[in-house]
């Protein structure tokens, strides 16, 4: 099965490309009879026969949004898969164990109270304060959850999920309090984070996301073997030459970075890190050597599809994407619970 991995990757990449091309055509705005090929060509040749609005919708709205859904989906799915490997449990996903809420909390604090902190923070960080806050929030909660729920390399699943519940509760309470304090403009921002949306996609954000994903994936994607070996127990993995502690630290920091950045740019899009590994496990068993790289692509496929549905199902408005992913994820959460009832 391991030898077929390149084939699986190729096929799912083709599927992703087809879906992305399809998503370009879908949307509320109708293009004036031009094919996209013609529009791209016109942009290339500085042809003025194409209306500016067509160009704008394609290049500044639809395309960046599609790219962002691909990037965010991939990042969330890979963080979910890595966390499941580290916690050795299919329920460990950034939202269920509270990492997303931790990032949300810090993001909310920086939105509402950011203007008070600004004088104390070096100027270079002002632009990216939200992302940094979300990253710190994610890192902090991940460390807390891991410390509370794991001793001697064994994770207590119930404690892990309950510490997620506790952190989510704190985060909700604080966000509620902040909403009470905030001005109208900040309020709109907060609602956006809470429900999740890819509507704010721009090329700058995509470039930052892509850079972070490139850094994180270059380390994480190749760790499938190590995560497999850790299923034996951490000592046995060490006898196979896996530097367990080092890998765990890197997973904690890099998934916090991924989740934090995703939350900063697209708000709370839940359950991607739960759904994607679950489906891949049904297809390929728990072989992380296969499901880790595959989750990078399937995460993109899932979020791209969900986002296309969310912006076309109730024209002319759109439903927040977090609602859609929750509708898909919650039944899977329940399915995993029923399946693992005995081993909890």
């Amino acid at each position, binding site marked *: 099965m*391991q030898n077929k991995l390149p084939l699986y990757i190729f096929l799912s990449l083709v599927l992703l490309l087809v879906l992305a091309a399809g998503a370009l055509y879908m949307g509320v705005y109708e293009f004036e009879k031009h094919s996209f090929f013609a529009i791209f060509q016109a942009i290339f040749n500085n042809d003025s026969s194409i209306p500016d609005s067509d160009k704008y919708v394609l290049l500044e709205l639809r395309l960046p949004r599609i790219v962002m859904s691909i990037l965010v989906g991939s990042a969330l799915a890979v963080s979910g898969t890595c966390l499941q490997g580290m916690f050795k449990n299919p329920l460990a996903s950034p939202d269920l164990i509270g990492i997303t809420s931790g990032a949300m909390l810090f993001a909310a604090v920086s939105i509402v109270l950011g203007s008070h902190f600004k004088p104390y923070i070096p100027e270079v960080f002002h632009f990216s304060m939200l992302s940094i806050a979300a990253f710190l929030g994610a890192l902090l909660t991940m460390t807390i959850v891991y410390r509370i729920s794991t001793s001697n390399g064994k994770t207590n699943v119930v404690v892990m999920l309950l510490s997620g519940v506790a952190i989510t509760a704190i985060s909700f309470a604080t966000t509620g309090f902040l909403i009470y304090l905030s001005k109208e403009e900040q309020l709109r921002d907060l609602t956006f984070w809470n429900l999740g949306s890819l509507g704010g996609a721009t090329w700058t954000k995509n470039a930052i996301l892509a850079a972070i994903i490139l850094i994180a994936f270059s380390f994480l994607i190749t760790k499938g073997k190590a995560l497999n070996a850790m299923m034996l127990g951490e000592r046995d993995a060490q006898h196979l030459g896996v530097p367990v502690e080092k890998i765990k630290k890197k997973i904690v920091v890099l998934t916090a970075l991924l989740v934090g950045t995703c939350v900063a740019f697209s708000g709370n899009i839940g359950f991607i890190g739960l759904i994607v590994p679950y489906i891949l496990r049904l297809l390929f*068993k*728990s072989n992380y050597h296969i499901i880790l790289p595959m989750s990078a692509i399937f995460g993109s496929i899932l979020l791209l599809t969900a986002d296309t549905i969310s912006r076309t199902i109730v024209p002319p408005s759109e439903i927040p994407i977090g609602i859609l992913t929750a509708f898909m994820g919650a039944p899977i959460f329940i399915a995993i619970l029923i399946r693992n009832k005995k081993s909890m």
Partner: protein
Amino acid sequence: MLEACKISYSHKKFSILENIDVSVNYGELLVIVGPNGAGKSTLLSMLANEMGQSEEPIYFKKKTFEEWDQKILPQHKAKFSQQNSNDIPLTVNDVVMMGRYPYFNSVPQQSDIDAVMKSMAETDVVAMKDRDYNTLSGGERQRVHLARVLAQLENDIAHKLVFMDEPLNNLDILHQHRILHTLKNFTELGNTAIVVLHDLNLAAQFADQVLLLKKGKIVSHDKPEKVFTKEIISKVYNFPCTICLNPVNQNPLIIFGT
């Protein structure tokens, strides 16, 4: 091969091992025996460098474990541990293939596939190679992990070292003897094995050296016929026994309760 001096270990002020000196030679099969709670598994863990850095360094082929290249070390030594994780949602073949992880980067080579097949044949698990690990019985799982450890040391390096903590648990008579014969063949090639066993008669039959532990101290460390005497064994195990010569292979034969 492996030299360790003054190994001590205590857990919450409760001393488990006290000042143990061990040295093992090339081609030696050392069996560690002793009553429950003697510190056998702890000693094996210490020797296998599982407890982190010990106060007194342990020398493996004249180098401490820290001095070894951590990528090369797994090709020289392997360990079979007692409590293996009970939930591994992979096929048997995938689990045995983990033993080859120190050898390939992303795709297993033909040599890795061959090594996996060879060691699966050795522990008699070829027939269940495509089954889910989680559906196996205790003894079958044990053999899968033994195959994994054997696959890890399947290479051309001379003088390898294997640690095994009660490898015969849950195994039937046939497989107990097959595993011990495999270990014996392994050491006859110049490699070394350090094994914790409970069955004294099997230890007497296969061991080159026996290390008898009680309450964290060495009672005796010598050839089987020197260690297995009526006085030592009945005192250490606190149970009467008779020792005679095995009429077939002339090894000591321990009969308890007489």
